């Protein structure tokens, strides 16, 4: 994993492989993440494997949850509230396309925010760039997204709905969702180490987020001045993007730009804060 170290006979100061100092240098950090890259995989793999072994239904949970919520939302928003549905897709499909990224985001956020505390035994006993821990929680949720995505494909077949060529842009919106969840997760998990009562706030954030995110309805039914404001919530851009890619529902590009900008901002703040707190994790956890 590490490059073989060349031993040279000089013992001048520049010859060390690593210098540990109170404030560690930032330059090596990303190199180090690369060196420990197999940990991303193995930690996500562990979480999935353990979940699979501990629950009877295992993977099925990543299908059942979005499916049931989608049915309820379709009923409440489509049938009872009779909200309009621009585009040709059935209401159920439209909700499901929004549900996938939202479930990914909420899972990733709740897993990532508790991840450092959950892996306290590792943090106090062995070194690796700590950012790998929340990152692999998000990756685990990404696998769940993949599983639910198979269901979506089956639905498309069932409804005989053929997605447009926009489909090829879907990975970009998945990336956007990843950035957003990871950035938030980094911040929250670092705060969580220091202030343990933060974990009670997280379910509330997720719940609150659901109300200001167009999961059960389409953002096109909101008039445009509010729409840009709503897009400050980065998941709005992601969900609109999903619907545009899969169902061809018209998209508000201004909103996507705002959401992208917000996601990057969140990621930046998350990384900054995490890096600042990282050295104290082992002492505080």
């Amino acid at each position, binding site marked *: 994993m*590490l490059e073989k170290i060349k031993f040279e006979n000089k013992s001048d100061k520049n010859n*060390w492989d690593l210098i*540990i*100092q*109170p404030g560690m240098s930032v330059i090596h950090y990303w190199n180090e993440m690369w060196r420990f890259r*197999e*940990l991303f995989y193995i930690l996500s793999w562990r979480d999935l494997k353990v979940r699979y*072994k501990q629950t009877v239904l295992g993977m099925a949970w990543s299908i059942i949850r979005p499916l049931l919520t989608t049915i309820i939302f379709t009923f409440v928003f489509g049938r009872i509230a009779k909200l309009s549905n621009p585009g040709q897709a059935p209401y159920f499909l439209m909700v499901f396309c929004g549900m996938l990224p939202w479930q990914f985001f909420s899972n990733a956020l709740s897993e990532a925010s508790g991840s450092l505390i959950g892996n306290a*035994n590792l943090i106090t006993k*062995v070194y690796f760039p700590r950012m790998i821990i929340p990152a692999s929680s998000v990756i685990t949720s990404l696998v769940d997204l993949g599983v639910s995505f198979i269901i979506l494909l089956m639905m498309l077949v069932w409804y005989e709905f053929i997605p447009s060529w926009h489909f090829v842009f879907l990975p970009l919106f998945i990336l956007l969702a990843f950035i957003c969840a990871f950035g938030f997760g980094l911040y929250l998990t670092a705060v969580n180490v220091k202030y343990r009562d933060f974990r009670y706030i997280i379910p509330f954030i997720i719940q609150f987020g659901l109300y200001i995110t167009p999961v059960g309805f389409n953002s096109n039914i909101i008039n445009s001045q509010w729409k840009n404001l709503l897009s400050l919530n980065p998941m709005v851009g992601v969900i609109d993007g999903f619907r545009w890619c899969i169902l061809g529902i018209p998209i508000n590009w201004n909103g996507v730009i705002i959401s992208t900008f917000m996601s990057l901002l969140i990621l930046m703040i998350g990384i900054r804060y995490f890096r600042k707190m990282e050295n104290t994790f082992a002492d505080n956890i």
Partner: protein
Amino acid sequence: MKTVIKASNISKKFKLHHESKEKYVALRDVITNNSKNLFSFKKKQFQRSSQNEIFWALKNIDFEIKQGDRVGIVGRNGAGKSTLLKILSRITSPSTGSVSLKGRVASLLEVGTGFHPELTGRENIFLNGTIMGMSRAEIKKQFDAIVQFAEVERFLDTPVKRYSSGMYVRLAFAIAAHLEPEILLIDEVLAVGDAQFQKKCLGKMEEVSKNDGRTILFVSHNISMIQKLCNTGMLLTSGQLTYTGDINQVISHYLDSAEEINNFYEFNGKISEDQIAYAKSIKILSGNNEDVKEIPVGEPWKIEIKFSVQHNVNGLIIGLGMLNEMDVPIRTSWTIPQNLLPGDYTATFLEDGIYFSPGTYRMLVGISIGKISIQYIDKDIFLHISDVIGKHDLSVVETKNGIFLNQMKMNVIRD
């Protein structure tokens, strides 16, 4: 040989929070404390300093370690040994100073870090190996050797939660033994596991160090193990590096560094003719009658009470009480009532069953006839149990494990 570790002036401080019992801060507390402070501007600074006392776990440590050295780090509980290893392995960062390292570092501060009970032996080898810094390819290459070393072939696909503690430890060590870092940091972990397997691990480490020129830093309370494995040593005393050099000298410094405490009592007052009996001297001895300053944890010790009887007496009882540092009575022992003629006697109390945890114990000696006390000796004699391990079969010496370190008789059977 080249220098592979160079530490200059490293210190580590911790803030001791007196007010909150919890280790971490609750947001609740921050909010309430700050609102308290709102109403007391003047006191604010004063309160800060009284609440957070600064504790230096390590202070101004300087050392250099050469390639291929096997360094034993010794010191009392709380001397900063583990903190030093944590800094070297980058788990915590030092408060001041710097450490320069050359080569790949692996730290073994715990057996089976990251082992997940639900996963099988095979899965845990990959999980733990990766966490310890091996690549997948390296683990694959070493896989058979690890399994063979651990002697767990038959249970590879069993979840480790069903492993016996011995198997668990063996598997964890086998992985650690097959790490191939240039510098290996080991904290106390070898203390667990059976003696034979310990020997195997020590042998493997010694081999690796001698043949491949690997550097090992080893923390243990087990002096004989350190003596066997290490060639040089460092002695830490309350966060400071007090001695470095040849391992045998470090160990003898360590053993000599015991605090001066009273382990001997001699009566030198005047005794009246009426006194029926009195203790002349009390002495703490090791199990084989050596006069020692402290008793290694788990080793037998005895108390020898020499007393004089001046008149014929019926029902004379010698009692011995023992209190810990918090003045909690630990136990009391009495001789059976004795009918004695005038003369000099010696009463001996021997302990060779209970392993008291390291620390200083206050001894009380009383002489009585029936229920009437005729002499009472308190605060004159102390027993010091040191955290040096003499025996091989004792696991980690930690005061937090309890007052008694003997293990119960245990078994696990399937219903």
